[in-house]
């Protein structure tokens, strides 16, 4: 039982970072299916810089690269007025393509970076603690401050915000860059705390699960946080079942691994209709 619980916390951590980044992005009125790609580039940067220097610079690199990847999405959608879904797909494909190339250049293998010894890795509970505080901080900033008011207005009525003398484009650049930095924590957690190295496509759909958690939480930070815990739990359960003597031998592992994704699918089918996204999402100005 304790095993499942601690495993839930560990598995939920990257989801929370990604979902909170997604929250800021979607609330500013930009669809954010590129969470996956941002996690991936920041995971790579975190692992690589940690390997060559130390975990602190590794975290910093992940934050910067996460913010830069998200800024690319912002540039495509806000500046170039590209379709938000297409831009998100482009960012995901870009991330999936650039990370193996850079890995190959630096480490000679396109599938993974060199493994980082445990003593040179980040003390992971720090990041988990941060992940558990973050939703409350974001809730407070969004619903109690002037910045938050502008963010909400930007997602639900950018025209109104504009006539009030605030540039929605500016709000979006800020929101997306900060979102990218937050997702960066999730990325570096994946490659240096959850694992000991970056491996190709290691995010394995977590960005999409985080997005689902955001929708499941009806685009509110605290419910989305709960949803992340729920998805973390389903993943933990799946891992436990794999090693359980009851099922482990008779049941194909792949069928168990599908469990969290199946839940994701069911949640999306059941909830996407009743949840209302920010009104400006998907609209090119």
């Amino acid at each position, binding site marked *: 039982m304790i095993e499942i619980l601690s495993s839930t916390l560990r598995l939920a951590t990257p989801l929370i970072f990604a979902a909170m980044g997604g929250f800021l992005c979607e609330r500013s009125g930009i669809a954010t299916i590129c969470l996956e790609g941002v996690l991936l580039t920041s995971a790579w940067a975190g692992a690589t810089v940690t390997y060559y220097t130390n975990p602190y610079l590794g975290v910093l690199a992940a934050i910067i690269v996460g913010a830069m990847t998200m800024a690319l999405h912002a540039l495509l959608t806000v500046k170039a007025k590209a379709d938000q879904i297409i831009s998100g797909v482009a960012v995901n494909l870009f991330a999936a393509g650039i990370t193996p190339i850079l890995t190959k250049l630096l480490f000679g293998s396109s599938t993974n970076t060199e493994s980082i010894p445990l003593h040179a890795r980040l003390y992971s509970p720090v990041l988990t603690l941060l992940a558990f505080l973050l939703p409350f901080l974001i809730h407070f900033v969004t619903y109690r401050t002037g910045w938050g008011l*502008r963010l909400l*207005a930007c997602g*639900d009525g950018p025209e109104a915000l504009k006539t009030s003398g605030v540039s929605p484009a500016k709000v979006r650049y800020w929101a997306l860059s900060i979102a990218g930095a937050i997702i960066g924590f999730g990325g570096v957690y994946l490659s240096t705390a959850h694992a000991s190295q970056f491996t190709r496509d290691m995010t394995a759909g977590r960005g999409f699960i985080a997005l689902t958690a955001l929708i499941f939480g009806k685009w509110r930070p605290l419910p989305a946080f709960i949803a992340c815990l729920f998805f973390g739990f389903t993943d933990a359960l799946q891992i436990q079942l794999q090693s359980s003597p009851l099922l482990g031998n008779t049941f194909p592992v792949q069928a168990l691994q599908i469990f969290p994704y199946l839940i994701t699918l069911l949640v999306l089918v059941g909830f996407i209709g009743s949840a209302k996204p920010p009104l400006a999402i998907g609209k090119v100005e």
Partner: protein
Amino acid sequence: MESLNPEVFSFKNITKTFASVLANHEVSFSVAEGTIHGVVGENGAGKSTIMKILYGMFEPDSGTIHFQGKPRSIPDPQTAISLGIGMVHQHFMLVPTLTVWENIILGKEPSKWLLDKASILKQLKSLKTKFGFQVDLEAKIESLSVGHQQQVEILKLLYRKANILILDEPTAVLSPQEVESLFEKLKLLKKAHKTIVIITHKLKEILSFTDSVTVMRQGKAIETLPTSSLTEDSLAEKIIGRKRIPLNFEKSGFEPEPVLKVASLSLSEAHNSILRHISFEINRGEIVGIAGIEGNGQHELIEVLAGVEKNYSGTVILNQENIKELSAYDLKQKGFSLIPPDRHLEGVILPFSLAENAILGHHRDPQIKSGPFLSSTKITQLASQLIQSFDIRPGEPSQSIAGLSGGNQQKLVVARETAREVSFLLAAHPTRGIDIGAIDFIHQYFLKLKAQGTAMLLISSELEEILKLSDRILVLYRGEIVAQVLKNEATEKDLGLWMTGGSKK
């Protein structure tokens, strides 16, 4: 009297073009401080453009703005706001999911960080009571009536310490009572030495509430004069630039021969009753008007009568035939015709040509076919006929209809829908948002149809139109007919009261 007030701003020879369209041409006029000033003209006369230039939304190609006596450039709304100029747009600029107080402070929050809700509410409450606003500060915008949303917009300007308030078509969506209450507040604002500019095409409001008027026509400011020197007719003539044609009632009565009989019509959607026991008849050559604020069941009534909505109880008989089993297409074959409420949504297809729009819904007509195919020669011929008899300009059949003014687009819709024998015409908002010239034309044409024996149901949010044309007026409120009056018994005040659920008759 008003001329004693000092000038607060003026335009000097402002010219503005969009692409190749001349929106403002050498516009010059001035507005005195502490007055209510009307800017009046038809759609496309350039009245919104000139005020948006003052608000910094557009930059003029040439000419200058003088503000408090000095030339001043206003490159963006922020500059305008800092000069104390505020604007309420025709389409409200509010965030529907946020509360009233959040919308008011948006963009000018007392702090970027923690918002002290209690002190904000206190400040807004005193602002609210000072000018007699009643809106609930903690309500969400999406739950408010349009009248209250407008109050929020005005409060938003006052919170920003605006001294010049520009209102773009403020009464287009209001009931007569809401219009009264709006102008009461504007008078209070005027007493507090605020200057108010109202952009409108409604003559009555100009005449009863403004101190001075600027008339605009085809991008030019024709004249600026005190309101007291004007009458409704003289103002209308200045706006359209020629004499008005008086309506010609060839025949005021009708024959007692029912064409349409609606009996106990009810309709529910998701457990909400939308229409409740509606019964009325329309006779040959009779025009029945339905007055009511939009959203009180008009939309559903139109759908039932047009044969689109079948899920109703009660009966609708058109020319002795129950329409329940008839499709929308069948109905058209049986002498029913519809002028749809939203021209751009249902009346025309904007990227299509005039000729293509002229046959919308009539593409099965053998008259425009050769064999199984549509004949472009025949279609062009038909379109040219309609264009000529309705004086539609520019009248090139192959041109896209998007290039025409609203009035000319609507003329094509009316022409198309009445090209064949029509025994019952359902006209929904037939003159919404079009110029006076086209309105006069369409009204005149309706009376011609009436004289020929067409029964007509006129649904409109313009009381003036209903009063002018109808033989009988029904008032629709929350899906119910709450009053029924004959033409000469009806007053605008009574109708307004009934429309807002004031009382029944």
